[in-house]
């Protein structure tokens, strides 16, 4: 497989996962805000924080309101992290990898693009926006279904899955980080009154509610939720599962030792996580560190497979 193709496929998967997670996150957040009273700690701006996009946002907008924030996160072509841009990159990477991807995958990506293009003007309307985001989530899952069912287990498949799990771990850690900041402050109004709702929202943002309840059969408590989302190795959207799966697919790739050792370190740290009262407040710091480690793994992948020093024959 060409190095360049490997790189495109890897990013294709990252963008696909990002589009899906972003859509779900925004929908879940919208529903959270409908449940909560007007509050200064949790509002539309929380989303901008999750995406680490404070500066980008204020470069473009003066005020903080639903309309501007939705436009920024979903439709703003000048902001690299917006959903339309992720979708554009997804489509370009698919378009430039047509020769190794199943034909139906390209058709689905293209249809997703056409659908979003046609509906983007209606995101100011909450109901239509929610329907659109729901449809995007479902289509993304459908594309993963094509990948799972139409592709040989070859290097292209491995790079797709590597990209998917590294992006998933990154997104999950961002969402976790945000929620832990909000509830860490034990004295704040919000944590007392609405802690249950917040943790429930977090689980829904990761489609984890049902599996969590099956797993814990208990109420929504901070330590239980965090332990589940960080250390569980059976639920596909928990951090340990994602990082472990990342390792499985890295393992199939040639000369993967250096990258694998980085991945193993990260997995060990996650498995060591203890949700005790004292460390609860530190969770967001740990999530920050995790994002840094994931970025280091990404660089190691690029160095190892996409831009190595080719020994000339």
């Amino acid at each position: 497989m060409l190095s360049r193709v490997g790189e495109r496929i890897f990013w294709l998967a990252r963008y696909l996962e990002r589009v899906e997670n972003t859509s779900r996150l925004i929908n879940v957040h919208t529903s959270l805000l409908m449940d909560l009273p007007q509050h200064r700690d949790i509002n539309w701006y929380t989303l901008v924080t999750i995406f680490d996009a404070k500066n980008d946002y204020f470069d473009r907008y003066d005020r903080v309101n639903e309309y501007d924030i939705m436009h920024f996160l979903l439709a703003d072509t000048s902001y690299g992290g917006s959903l339309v841009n992720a979708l554009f990159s997804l489509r370009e990477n698919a378009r430039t990898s047509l020769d190794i991807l199943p034909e139906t995958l390209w058709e689905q990506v293209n249809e997703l693009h056409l659908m979003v293009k046609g509906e983007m003007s209606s995101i100011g309307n909450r109901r239509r926006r929610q329907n659109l985001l729901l449809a995007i989530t479902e289509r993304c899952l459908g594309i993963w279904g094509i990948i799972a069912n139409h592709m040989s287990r070859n290097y292209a498949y491995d790079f797709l899955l590597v990209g998917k799990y590294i992006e998933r771990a990154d997104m999950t850690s961002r969402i976790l980080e945000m929620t832990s900041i909000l509830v860490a402050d034990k004295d704040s109004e919000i944590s007392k009154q609405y802690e249950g709702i917040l943790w429930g929202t977090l689980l829904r943002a990761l489609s984890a509610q049902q599996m969590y309840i099956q797993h814990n059969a208990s109420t929504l408590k901070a330590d239980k939720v965090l332990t589940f989302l960080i250390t569980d190795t059976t639920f596909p959207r928990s951090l340990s599962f994602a990082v472990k799966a990342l390792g499985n697919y890295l393992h199939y790739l040639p000369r993967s030792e250096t990258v694998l050792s980085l991945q193993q370190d990260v997995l060990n740290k996650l498995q060591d996580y203890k949700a005790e009262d004292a460390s609860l407040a530190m969770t967001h710091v740990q999530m920050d560190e995790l994002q840094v480690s994931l970025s280091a793994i990404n660089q190691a992948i690029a160095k190892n497979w996409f831009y190595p020093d080719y020994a000339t024959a």
Partner: protein
Amino acid sequence: MKEMWRDYDPDGFFDELMYEKHQPRGFSYRLLDYLTSMDEEAFSQRINESEMEMLERGITFTVYSDAGNIDRAWPFDIIPRAIPKSEWQRTEKGLQQRIRALNQFIDDIYNEGSIVKDGLMPADVVYDSKGYRAYCQGMSPSHGVWANICGSDLVRDDTGKLYVLEDNLRVPSGVSYMLENRKTTKRVFPELFRLLDISPVDAYPEQLSRMLRSLRPDVSNPNMVLLTPGVYNSAYYEHAFLAQQAGLTLLEGADLLVGRDNYVYMKTIHGLERVDVIYRRIDDDFIDPEAFRPDSMLGVPGIMRAWRQGKVAIANAPGCGVADDKVIYAYVPAMIRYYLNEEPILDNVPTWLCREPEQLAHVLEHLPELVVKPANESGCYGMLVGPHASEEKVSEFRQLLKQNPNNYIAQPTLKLSVSPTCCDGGIAPRHVDLRPFILSGEDCYVTPGGLTRVALVEGSLVVNSSQGGGSKDTWIVDDRSFMEGQ
């Protein structure tokens, strides 16, 4: 939708599907009967289906314009163009004959040059041609074939006679649209394929792969790639499509390097991997900055060295564009007689060589009626279409012809044939041409039919997709049963 057809009138042009108003040809009777019996609403629904299909499959081509580069949906007309098989068989033989002669010609001029020595062609016509590459002297690629993929343009005049308008030997494009058009027609009009015996076209990718493999008889399982200029090339969709269908690795110049051993390698996740056959979709000029244009960012430095040493096969072979020259085109019938000792099966469009004084005099006298073409431009750049040109343009060309007669040929303005085409809710005759694709390696393969391009603008003769042209599915219909008087 009988009403839509009531006023249809080819109006003196040769119509591909009809003798004249309301008179279908034998082989197109069932097609037209089917179309006219369909109600208007059902028909427009089929049109919508075909448009959705093309859009969803992302079949696009890029238009480079001032407004930015736009990916447009491929303009497709759902009414097929049909050709009787009996006529096609002869055309196919003619195309094979022609490509054989052209390949022998290219091999000859890069080696002995006997056609020049024997006085059949002036030396300057060959060696001063823009497509001639002195670098290729002394080379002889596998099977003596230089133009492995050829896309000749065929047109009919008002009598229905078929002519070769040009031989596209450099990097002809359009074959993926031929395949996509058929796929769409099959989905939109499945019933028609039961009513008629239509030659399938989908063997092309397999034939392409087989031809490329035959270029390296010395390697048992050659590593084959398609070299594209990249995503921003207007034919990128086709490059990706062909790579996918024929199992070639799609790559760009930056993915390749030439090693110290003069083999070509591609950069993979395992390290370097040797490449044996390159189907290149990059012009000669850009393929190797060491040999041709030093400013080329698309090519691979040293790739010509590797080719000359036989360490990689390149299709089409560098230098084969010399036979694409419009002046050299005029000599193709002579080549067929010279190399093959046969009479041409397919004719050239009658052509005046402006380098010959008497012919130039005739051209200057009849300039407003003629089409004038420069020797080495593709598409319709630098061309004069006399009847459609302003007086200034005609006199500009009068000057050009006097200054540099050697660079030009002239042809009569053909009354190109027409075929029924959907336009603004109605059906009207529109001019068409035909581009079959010919593969030559160890064997020779001709696509059954090819890509029919149609000028969607009333009266226009320009079929290029970049200038308002569209395309149709092309059917080679078995007409034996119809000839027996059904």
